[in-house]
Structure formats: C-alpha cells, structure tokens
C-alpha cells in the first residue's frame, strides 16, 4: 500500500442546539469505520460532553482533549478505542472545564497529529457561534451543516453557512437535513427537503427521517448506523448512505415517502365511500 494521504477533517455544526450534530457525528463516523476507514471523533463541546454517551464509551474515559493540550498526557493516551471496531476512536471533551480551555491553534495542532494516522477526523461542535464554534472549525477543511426543517433551525443554519463562507480553509460544506417527517410534509405542515435547499441554497449530503430508533440506540450506547440484519431502521440506511457519499460513492437520496399509516388508509376508505 502507498503511503497514507492526510486524513480529511470534517466539522459537524449547526448553530442551534439539539438538532442532531452529536447524533450525526457518531453515526457518520461509525458508518465510515464500518466501511473499514480509520476514523477518529473529536468532541469539542467542552463542559457539555455527550459524544461518549452516544458511542457507549462513557466509562472508558481517562483523559480528555484539554488534558492533551495542557500536556498532562499523550494524545494516544486520551484516545478511547471503540468497543466494536478497532479502527474507530473518540477524543473526549473535558466535562469540568469551559470553552476557553481550548484555542483554535491548539485544535490545529491536535488535528494535524491525528491526520497522519486517520482517514477521517470528525469534529462535533457545540451550539452557538462563539469560541466553541471557532475551535471546532479551526482545523477543518470540510463542514457538515445539520438542520431540521424548522424555521429557527434553518435560520441558524443560514447564519452558520455565512460564517463558513468567510473561512478560507473550508473548501466544501453540505447539509444534513435531520428529523424529516414524511407525514407532516404530506399534510403541508412542514417544509420539505426542496424548500430548505432552496432557502439555504446549499448542497445536500443526506436526509435523516425522524426515527425513534435513534433514541433507542442512544439509550443503548450503540449508534443506529451499526444495526445489522434485514429489518434495519430507516435512520440506519440514511446514515450509511451519508457515509458512502462522503467516501465518494454516488448513492441516491432516500425516498421520504413512508408507507401510509393505517389511520390514513382508514380515512381514505371513508372518502372513497363518499365519492
């Protein structure tokens, strides 16, 4: 094998909190690891770390990223190996410090070292557009903007896109639209994928449906993308597709049309009777 090229550094960001940054970081990262790539996930949400919980690695943390930059340990000592895949690991955030414990310069140093080892470095960013955001994007060359089809989320995504545009190092950013509800779109109660793309004029990386399996997976500490078998949740497929697209494959987007729930069918039966 030829000498390894530098790993790709991708920040996952959104502006607004609670839209699925951490969920997406865990699942896209694990999805690429599942494909065989060497992946490291960095949690930059200092003081509010969560990525460890989603990965089910919360009990294995010894050191964190602040320990690394303050030289209390080696970078390798702070990396938490995933229990399922040897080619996936996590660099946890500090839980008892605040955003100012890390600078953009320090982030760059850490990431540069990781780039030699790993194919993909995913950086989970905190909510907001202040220092935490600046730290998270500092070392990245690509960005994934996560939004839900709600006004406040799309507005914040627009703001983030504006900020990403001013960063020369970011060569490419794409949108992951999360918590999409086919039933509400059908009823014209929610903006659809095209509406959001039109408003933000951004390229689409993937669509994640609203899916309770994501919550179940989080509770189990097992990213939904790693479910196997022939009855996998739609979110599993959605995240696998995103991982494949990032790896360069041309995968069609998920058809958001869910099978009609039986209440709907019941209603249309009535209409049919009336017609």
């Amino acid at each position: 094998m030829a000498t390894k090229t530098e790993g790709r550094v991708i920040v996952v960001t959104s502006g607004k909190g609670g839209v699925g940054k951490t969920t997406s970081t865990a699942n896209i990262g694990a999805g690429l690891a599942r494909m065989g790539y060497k992946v490291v996930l960095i949690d930059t949400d200092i003081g509010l770390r969560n990525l460890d919980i989603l990965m089910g690695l919360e009990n294995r943390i010894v050191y964190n990223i602040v320990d690394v930059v303050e030289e209390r340990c080696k970078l390798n000592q702070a990396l938490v190996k995933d229990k399922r895949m040897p080619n996936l690991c996590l660099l946890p955030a500090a839980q008892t410090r605040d955003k100012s414990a890390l600078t953009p310069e320090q982030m760059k140093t850490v990431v540069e070292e990781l780039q030699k080892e790993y194919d993909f470095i995913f950086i989970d960013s905190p909510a907001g557009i202040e220092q935490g955001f600046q730290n998270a994007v500092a070392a990245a060359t690509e960005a994934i903007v996560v939004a839900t089809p709600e006004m406040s989320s799309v507005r914040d995504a627009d703001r983030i896109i504006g900020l990403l545009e001013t960063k020369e190092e970011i060569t490419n950013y794409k949108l992951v639209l999360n918590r999409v509800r086919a039933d509400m779109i059908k009823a014209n109660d929610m903006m659809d994928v095209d509406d959001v793309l039109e408003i933000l004029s951004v390229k689409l990386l993937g669509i994640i449906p609203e899916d309770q399996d994501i919550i179940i997976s989080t509770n189990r500490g097992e990213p939904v993308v790693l479910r196997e078998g022939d009855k996998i949740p739609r979110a599993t497929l959605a995240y696998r597709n995103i991982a494949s697209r990032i790896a360069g494959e041309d995968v069609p987007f998920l058809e958001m049309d869910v099978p009609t729930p039986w209440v709907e069918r019941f209603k249309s039966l009535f209409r049919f009777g009336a017609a």
Partner: protein
Amino acid sequence: MSTQGPQQSKLVQWWIDLFQKISGPLPQLLTDEASPTEDAPSAKEDAKNRLKLVLMHDRTQISPTLLESMRDELVQVICKYVEVDQTTLDLCLEQETNTIALVANISVVRSKESNTSA
C-alpha cells in the same frame, strides 16, 4: 363532569377512550373534511415565506426598523420633486437570483412643477 347518570357517561367515555386508542386522535378524523383551512396558506407555506423574509433581513443586516426610517426619508426626498401618494410608498427587500435588492415602489400622482402644460 358528573351531571346526568354518572354510570352512563363513564361508559361513553370508556368507548371514546377505546376508540381513540385504536384510531388515533378522534377530532382529526371527524373534522378532516370540514376543516376551514382550505384557502389559508399551509403551515409549510407560512414557514417558507416568513423564513425568506427573516433571512433577507439577517443577510443584509437591514432590520425592519431601519427599512422604515429609510422609507420615511425617501418619501421626504421624493416629495421635493414629485407629488407622490405617501401611503403607497413601499420599500422592501426582494430576493433576486443571487443578490438581495432594495425595491421601492412609488405611485407618482403628478410632477410638482406645473409642466402639465397640455
């Protein structure tokens, strides 16, 4: 709650509960056809339109108040030269393909100078 025949109303409630449990929200099912929102814009359209406007203000950093004071000053300037219907002067932001435009729409009543000779 307990007015006429507590026994009976309990039974009725039991049936309604049961029905709702199997069918989902009852009102939605029954009022579906008669819903009065036929020509009002959908929640989706509302969101889209409001969002577009908000984003134009965000992107240009021109707030509705700023737009208002610009409008008022514009009226004053224009009124020096032509007679306009002040109530119809409309200044707003409009999204063009790649840019955002400040668009003023003014109905001119007639020129101030009495050059309406003919």
